[in-house]
């Protein structure tokens, strides 16, 4: 039994103090996800907080045991979408590109970032969840609300597009 399962089991039994550990366990992953999907750091931080609060509030309705990470990312994705909607009229910060690209350690990494950014939205999210968040296909399927086979085929298509672009560059 993984630590996540142990904590979820304890919470289900009524030991709600385990939420703190569970939140700490995923805090960094969700922050990273929200930074990637938010216009600025402040919005990302708010999105993280909102995500965890929503997850705790809606946990009694959560039925599919064993897919908690998928459920968590689905809530985070919806929260980030809402944040974008709210911030639609606000101008994006000037240092956003710096935040996204400025820490790449090699040219190859910068290129990959551009290539992923240029992917169609439905492919980009799957590549990001697979490579940056290391979610399983089942978890990605739950987070994006698609069948596992569709996720697999979309990932294949995305990697093919990246490969084509790399060959084009060479």
């Amino acid at each position, binding site marked *: 039994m993984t630590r996540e399962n142990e904590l979820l089991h304890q919470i289900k039994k009524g030991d709600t103090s385990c939420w703190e550990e569970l939140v700490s366990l995923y*805090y960094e992953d969700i922050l990273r996800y929200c930074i990637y999907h938010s216009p600025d750091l402040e919005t990302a931080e708010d999105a993280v907080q909102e995500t965890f609060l929503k997850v705790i509030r809606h946990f*009694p309705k959560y039925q599919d045991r064993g897919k908690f990470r998928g459920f968590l990312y689905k809530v985070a994705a919806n929260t980030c979408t809402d944040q974008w909607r709210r911030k639609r009229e606000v101008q994006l910060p000037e240092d956003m590109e710096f935040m996204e690209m400025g820490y790449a350690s090699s040219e190859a990494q910068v290129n*990959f970032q551009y290539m992923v950014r240029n992917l169609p939205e439905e492919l980009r999210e799957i590549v990001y969840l697979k490579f940056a968040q290391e979610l399983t296909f089942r978890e990605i399927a739950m987070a994006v609300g698609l069948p596992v086979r569709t996720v697999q085929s979309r990932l294949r298509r995305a990697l093919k597009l990246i490969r084509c672009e790399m060959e084009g560059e060479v």
Partner: protein
Amino acid sequence: MDRKQYEELRNALKIDVKVCREMEDTGVVARRMRAQRERVLQSVRDLPAVQMPKRRIGFFEFMFRQIPFMGRDLWMSQGSAALVVFGVLYLSLCGDLAYLSIRHIPLMLGILAIMLVMTSIPLLLRPYRYQMHEIELASRQSLWKLLTAELILLMTEDLVVFGFSAGIATGIAGLSAVKAAMYFLLPLFLAGTGCAQLIRRTGGWEEVSQRIGLCEGYCGLLAMVLLILYRTKPVVYGETGVWVICTVIVFPLFVLSVGTWLKDSTEVGERTGMVDA
């Protein structure tokens, strides 16, 4: 793409983590990140769901907690129905209640019993309409327990109304309490049995209002029968033995129908996810 390229892609997309970690290593930003993390954890701790873990309350505690919500509605509607009956009667007799003779009392008690059932049907079917998901989540009680609690509250009210009516009947017309109970209970059981059966049989109907309409129609019909009997064969009301036999026959049917309805409600609860947590 080879393994190395996959690794590059993974690292490229994971850079945001490095952003966070580097931020933690630097003074002001590190403090901000730690404060933010603490803010999230504190907001989690402050959530009522985390602060006060859900304690499963017992059935009777649950029932008493229903009084300010459903009990009040039930009692108000039934009390109003009883008041309307007495009001109409009082006004039609110009305040001279002594005019009420033994001949009038059975019809009055019967109509009153049917009206009590009629007013309770919309409230009893309310959990079907709204699924009462919030209550189920908050209390961890299933649908059949919710209905049982409502029925107990309902019976309490019926008992009070009956006590009051029987008191008037005994005091004014000199009718015995046993006879008053008979004239009240038989229509009540007949209406209750019919409505429970109708609710069960129309379980597949999506529109709750149609089911309510059907039950109200049945109760209306029953009231009409009582009225027709009163007009055409008033002698029936004098046959106490017939009323006793009918009550003895109908009572088990009533218990059986309500029991089966509650049992079926458990299955409805299971289908809609409203089971005991």
